[in-house]
């Protein structure tokens, strides 16, 4: 891992020189909270790491339910309408 010190207003460019470069700018530091701005091309999705991990877990929980669970869900929905 590359570790850098930056001041407020300073940036780091990732993938410099290419049109796909991502620029990360330190906007504000207050206590233990750092606000950062990320300027990335549309092909690069930017998300909080913990949200992606939560979504991966939620997807894994939802994946491939057993057939009888799907059948009983289908039946429960039908009897509800």
């Amino acid at each position: 891992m590359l570790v850098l010190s930056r001041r407020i207003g300073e940036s780091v460019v990732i993938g410099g020189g290419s049109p796909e470069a991502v620029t990360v700018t330190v906007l504000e530091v207050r206590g233990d909270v750092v606000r950062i701005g990320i300027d990335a091309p549309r092909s690069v999705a930017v998300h909080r790491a913990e949200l992606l991990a939560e979504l991966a877990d939620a997807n894994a929980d939802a994946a491939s339910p057993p057939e009888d669970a799907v059948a009983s869900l289908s039946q429960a929905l039908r009897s509800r309408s």
Partner: protein
Amino acid sequence: MDLPVIELAHPMPGFPDDARFALVRLDDDGVLHGFRSLDSQDLQFVVVPPAPFYPDYALDLDDDTATELGIDESSAADVLVLLVVRAGATLADTTVNLRAPLVVNPATRRASQVILDDADLPLAAPLVA
């Protein structure tokens, strides 16, 4: 609606190797659908349209996602929004993911699991209240 081959613009988080899916109907009412991987055997997500369960659910698709999925003014009305279901032991235990719906453009057969910015939307909301 049944769609034979849908290509994901990005893999779903947790499933990096699955890019191609098929959408198949699972019930007679056309509510439950299977979002079935064509790349892994036996990988399937159960999905539902939001309308019967969350009639007010609406999402603002950002321009980048719209571009990625080939959504323009002429195709916007046909775009499918599907909620991923986690089937519980009972209907009361069954949840849907409101934070990250699947958005499918039937015209281009491209799709993406879109992570919405609204932090108030739960990853696991009851399917029926």
